């Protein structure tokens, strides 16, 4: 090899590297910039937001939008409702999904394959198709416009059962057999032997349930109507269509959108590693 090409190759590779990083940084900017605009606009005055929407520096800086949301709107009620529903749904799913997942993975009983097939069928039903159906039953049961109607239908999910089932199948049964020989009942084994070992899978369920119920909109539209039961998604959606405001009121709307993103964002950054791995595990085929 002659020396000129040898020196040229790394230079070409370097150019490639620079181009790659430039492309990646540009793309990342496109993905991140909207959220920066959201936060920046929420501390702008309405006039400033309209005059210079692109700028990330508020001129002047004002917390008026947040003040308005917390002191003179139903925003705190919405936030509290979302929190209550999310906590109850997450707790319910962690418990019931792992119970059923354990039964499907470990317990032998007549009808197990039928239960399994039924859960697969359930997962195939698109959620949007269930809007009217869910309202009909909630209404028929007399739990329309109550926490019961908002929480109960979300309390279990078939996908979570599968995640738990797959996890239980992946751990050796020997520990449970030891406990069984020692005379522990099935629930006792599940509760004090199996569940503590299932932490990684339980964290996955917590993440998915938290995100799912915090971001849920359509179910709350069909299960409740009174202002005192409005969740964040429903409340902020009503803000978007302009029920609080004269004019565009973008700082207030974006402040509300930013605040409702905070809990899921915190969740995401705390469990970042787990989330990336969870979705990787979910599609192993």
């Amino acid at each position: 090899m002659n020396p000129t090409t040898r020196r040229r190759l790394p230079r070409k590779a370097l150019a490639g590297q620079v181009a790659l990083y430039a492309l990646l940084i540009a793309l990342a900017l496109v993905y991140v910039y909207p959220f920066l605009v959201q936060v920046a606009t929420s501390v702008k005055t309405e006039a400033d937001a309209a005059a210079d929407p692109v700028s990330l520096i508020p001129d002047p800086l004002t917390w008026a939008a947040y003040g308005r949301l917390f002191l003179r709107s139903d925003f705190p009620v919405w936030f509290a409702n979302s929190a209550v529903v999310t906590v109850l749904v997450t707790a319910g799913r962690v418990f019931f999904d792992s119970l059923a997942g354990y039964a499907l993975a470990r317990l032998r009983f007549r009808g197990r394959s039928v239960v399994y097939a039924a859960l697969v069928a359930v997962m195939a039903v698109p959620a949007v198709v269930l809007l009217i159906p869910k309202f009909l039953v909630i209404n028929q049961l007399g739990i329309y416009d109550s926490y019961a109607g908002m929480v109960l239908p979300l309390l279990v999910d078939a996908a979570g059962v599968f995640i738990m089932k797959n996890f239980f199948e992946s751990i050796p049964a020997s520990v449970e057999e030891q406990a069984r020989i020692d005379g522990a009942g099935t629930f006792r084994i599940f509760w004090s032997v199996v569940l503590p070992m299932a932490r990684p899978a339980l964290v996955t369920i917590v993440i998915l349930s938290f995100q799912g119920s915090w971001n849920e909109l359509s179910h709350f539209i069909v299960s409740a109507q009174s202002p005192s039961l409005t969740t964040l998604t429903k409340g902020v959606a009503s803000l978007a269509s302009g029920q609080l405001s004269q004019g565009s009121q973008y700082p207030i709307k974006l402040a509300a959108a930013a605040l409702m993103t905070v809990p899921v964002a915190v969740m995401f950054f705390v469990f970042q590693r787990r989330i990336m791995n969870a979705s990787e595990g979910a599609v192993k085929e």
Partner: protein
Amino acid sequence: MSALATAPRRAGSPRGLRRGEALAGWAFTAPVLLILGVFLLVPVLMALWVSFSDWSGRGSPLSSDVGFVGLDNYAAVTTGGGLAERDFGVALRNNAWYVLLVVPLQTALSLFLAVLVNRAVLRGRGAFRTAFYFPSVTSSVAITVLWLFLFSTSGVVNTVLARLGIAGPNWFNEPSGVLHNLLGALGVRSGPQALTEHGFLGLSWWDWLAGPSVAMSAFVLMAIFTTSGTFMLLFLAGLQNLGPDVDEAAMVDGANGWQRFWRITLPQLRPTLFTVLTLGLIGSWQVFDQIYTGTQGGPGKTTLTPAYLSYQSAFLSQEWGRGAAIAFILFVIIVLLTILQRWILRERR
């Protein structure tokens, strides 16, 4: 002592143990079965009944004064010739264009992002992945609110376009179809008679070919923005499962990066590609949150989708039978398209 106590139990035949297991099995699955039965199976059956009835939303749909009307509700939206049929046609057209754009674009972009951040030697790999994935964790309502601001008439997007010398459209207030606009720019302002005089579901073929409205296009961009991160993770997992040996062999044979991607990597990613396309197809036929939050079907019904139309018919117009019928037709469309797609992408020998 404990050995003595457990000895008879152990000897007490596995059958006794098994019987307890059967009971526990049903007890453990009972809560899930009960809740899914009451809030999923029963509702679907009830809604099926409502779709064949003239229930007006007052009282219980199961009471005796609710009449059975056969396929009337289905007929009203498919062959009725009235506004209901036209609305359904418009909603199908809007959503079909949405799917046609969103599914290929989100798949291509997420694959592209995955390939970019999959490099072994890449500084800030985690940061880039986080940036691309973050939009996926936020709620559709929050993103829609943000999108309404970004794409407002004098919003961020139009300001940036203006700096590039382009006059941006009035995004969420612009009902004109993108394809019609392109043809218009070429001087074609109305369709040939063959297309304008005949049609389907109360909509002329010319109108079916309008393309997504400018407003719908903004939603298309939003869908791509929010889903590409999730699908990027799926592709990353797929890429990481591939062994390096085939790729290295191809490299030794002198294949360049481009050839290796199309001939080696992509065929091996087939299972992931299949998953992404299926999830994308199912998801993009269920456009509801964005429309409810952002446009309520406007402007000029060009962001109306079957899912939103179903909600609107039932909850706002009290046409419950019609709303339920639309939901079931949508269900059938999703199932049929999923089957069709499986058939097209099946493994050929």
